[in-house]
């Protein structure tokens, strides 16, 4: 099977490899740091990792390898090893590990996805737009998803990156070794590379992760609780997660959307009348350490506030995957290399530039040339400042970056 597929795409793969080689011939890759201590893994067309446990003595050898072998994907370990090519993992002798947090647009639910994504049920052949987990007509969860990304969903991911970097700086006090790169597809990686974090144990990393995702947060332990008849909260000034929760709460209360408050507080609207009438007072007492008593008994009041607070916590918690983020053996795309599934660069971005970074434009590698391709079916998509498509069973001549993007995604063939 695999062989047939490979042969089927032989021409396309050769084309991509030629282009990628050009890229590596003209671009020196200066990441990762400490090359000699990293385990590397490479991937081929349609497969992110086909080989791992590789190592390079220095950056020159690594670059030479990129020019000669031109892998479709290159990843390096977040961890540093004395002997990165040894196996099994224990023999590598790890002596440190970067902190890397990954955000992916496909983990974040945005409305634009109904516009560009589609699914097909492998059981009953039903089709539809958007991204689903289960087939709405037969309930099966074997769906084949066709996912695309647009500036809107990538910007949503960016918001998470901003929130994370803010916490890393403000709460964790990380000042050095922090950098961000685009994943080359639809996400961002945030790296922290400094001595203070390098030696953290796996358990310590999980503690940090739990803090970022507010996993099992206990609001009562943090100072939100019923004291006699009033529900108290930490006084201003606050910091850390408490400050973020209080800020979000104060935003929610200043909007004073009774529907929202009743829904998330699980309480009839009628009990919220005086809360709404005394908005300013409510906000003032929030800052001085009490939450306004609504028109209900002390217990009901407590439940109401805890419901609201827990809802807020779930909303501001970062969407970081616990599993991959705490995996110290993971391999992560080498910054500034090509993502073989899109032909885009996994570009390193300065934090100051992140807000104006237009991933689907600024990460484009192949800006010149045009290529003719046959496209099976693609939705309208955005790349390098232009919109293309939708196309269906069409032969079109496209700028190289768009042709490469579709070929790499397996959506187009050379003609």
């Amino acid at each position, binding site marked *: 099977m695999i062989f047939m597929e490979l042969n089927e795409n032989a021409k396309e793969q050769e084309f991509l490899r030629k282009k990628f080689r050009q890229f590596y011939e003209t671009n020196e890759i200066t990441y990762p740091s400490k090359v000699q201590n990293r385990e590397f893994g490479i991937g081929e067309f349609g497969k992110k990792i086909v080989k791992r446990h590789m190592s390079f003595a220095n950056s020159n050898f690594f670059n030479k390898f990129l020019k000669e072998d031109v892998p479709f994907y290159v990843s390096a370990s977040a961890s540093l090893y004395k002997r990165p090519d040894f196996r099994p993992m*224990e023999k590598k002798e790890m002596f440190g590990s970067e902190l890397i947090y990954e955000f992916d647009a496909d983990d974040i639910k945005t409305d634009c996805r109904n516009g560009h994504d589609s699914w097909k049920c492998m059981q009953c052949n039903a089709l539809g737009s958007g991204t689903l987990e289960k087939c709405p007509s037969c309930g099966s969860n074997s769906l084949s998803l066709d996912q695309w990304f647009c500036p809107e969903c990538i910007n949503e991911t960016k918001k998470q990156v901003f929130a994370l970097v803010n916490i890393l700086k*403000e*709460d*964790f*006090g*990380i000042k050095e070794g922090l950098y961000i790169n685009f994943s080359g597809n639809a996400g961002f990686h945030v790296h922290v590379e400094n001595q*203070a*974090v390098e030696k*953290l*144990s*796996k*358990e*310590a990393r*999980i*503690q*940090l992760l*739990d*803090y970022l995702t*507010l*996993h*099992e*947060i*206990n609001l009562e*332990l*943090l100072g939100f609780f019923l004291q006699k008849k009033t529900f108290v909260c930490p006084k201003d000034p606050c*910091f*850390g*997660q*408490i400050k973020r929760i209080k800020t979000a709460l104060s935003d929610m209360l200043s909007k004073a959307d009774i529907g929202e408050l009743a829904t998330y507080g699980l309480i009839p609207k009628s009990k919220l009348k005086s809360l709404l009438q005394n908005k300013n007072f409510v906000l003032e007492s929030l800052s001085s350490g009490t939450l306004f008593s609504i028109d209900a008994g002390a217990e009901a009041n407590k439940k109401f506030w805890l419901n609201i607070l827990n809802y807020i916590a779930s909303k501001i918690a970062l969407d970081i995957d*616990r*599993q991959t983020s705490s995996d110290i053996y993971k391999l992560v795309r080498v910054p500034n290399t090509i993502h073989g599934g899109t032909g885009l660069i996994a570009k390193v971005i300065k934090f100051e530039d992140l807000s104006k970074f237009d991933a689907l434009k600024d990460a484009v590698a192949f800006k010149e040339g045009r290529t003719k391709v046959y496209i099976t079916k693609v939705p309208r998509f955005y790349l390098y400042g232009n919109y293309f498509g939708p196309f269906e069973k069409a032969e079109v001549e496209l700028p190289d970056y768009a042709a490469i993007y579709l070929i790499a995604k397996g959506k187009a063939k050379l003609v």
Partner: protein
Amino acid sequence: MWTLDQLFFAYKYPISLKTREIIKDYNFSLDNLDKEIIDIAVSRIKSSYSGKEYLPSYIEHSKSKDLILTEIIAFPVAKILVSCLDRALMYKFSENVSSTLFYHLNREQKRLQVALDLANELGIKVDLKENGENYIELSLVDFVEVSNKDPQLNLVNQHVSAGKVLLNEIKFCRFLAAKAYFMTFNSLQGDLSSIPKYLKDIAKGIKFESAFSSNFESFGAFGKIDPNAFPACMKSIYSSLINGENVAHIARFNITTFLNSIGMPKEQIIAAFKKTPNFDERVTRYQVERITTGNIKYSASSCATMRSNGLCPDKNCTSKHPISFYKGALAVSRKTSKEEK
């Protein structure tokens, strides 16, 4: 020479620098230890198995420097003996050092001062803030290295700012106790080759009064149930249960799903809870039945989940699932017992 106060400090906080200095001073040799010291070391190990803090009553109001000194010397000897024993016991022992240390610290009249002295001896940098309830400030990195030990120390429920964690006095004591756990455990896995044979024999000879060594007859999904083949996480919960310690809800849940998955009969699972404080058969039965035969199927947690619940005591265990650990260990122990025959 050492004052009585200094000796008491070293005895109560055996991970301190002071303890090490005193031991160095005493200059003892492993080759011919006093029987008294060995006996104390053994009883310290045994007490860790019972789950009770190690508090020999004759020490508390003692004015005898010798008596206290013997206790101090017995600590490293106990560590050596434990190093010859199995991992589960190493955890128990470290746990015991930690809880005993907390017991002492918490009862100090000048608790804050003693805690700060201890932190200082351990090289932990601490700052005191002027006001507020959480006024003890330490580095986030120092804190997260040990905070997973104690659910009350979970970072998500602490006051964090600019790379620092702010604690109140009692949490600070808990932090030191957690630190003691890791310091003790990490100092255990040394090189066994330099230990005299007679000490190894003494270690092997230590008998534990627990269900681990009693004849445990129960047949489960993989044949006879063998608690010795349990992974460290389950050994630790299980022995706490049968020793009548108070076990957190989440730990109870996980041991139940685990025992159920390896096929321990329901009645026997219930019986395992019998010694826990406030045991109520009706409630336990209801809970165990809900897990084992209820509508929702609860399967045993993976290591990832165990870890995130703070229930994985073994950093070096590479298992992915406690059940697969058990199956593997069982296969090994059966193979070796066959070979021995």
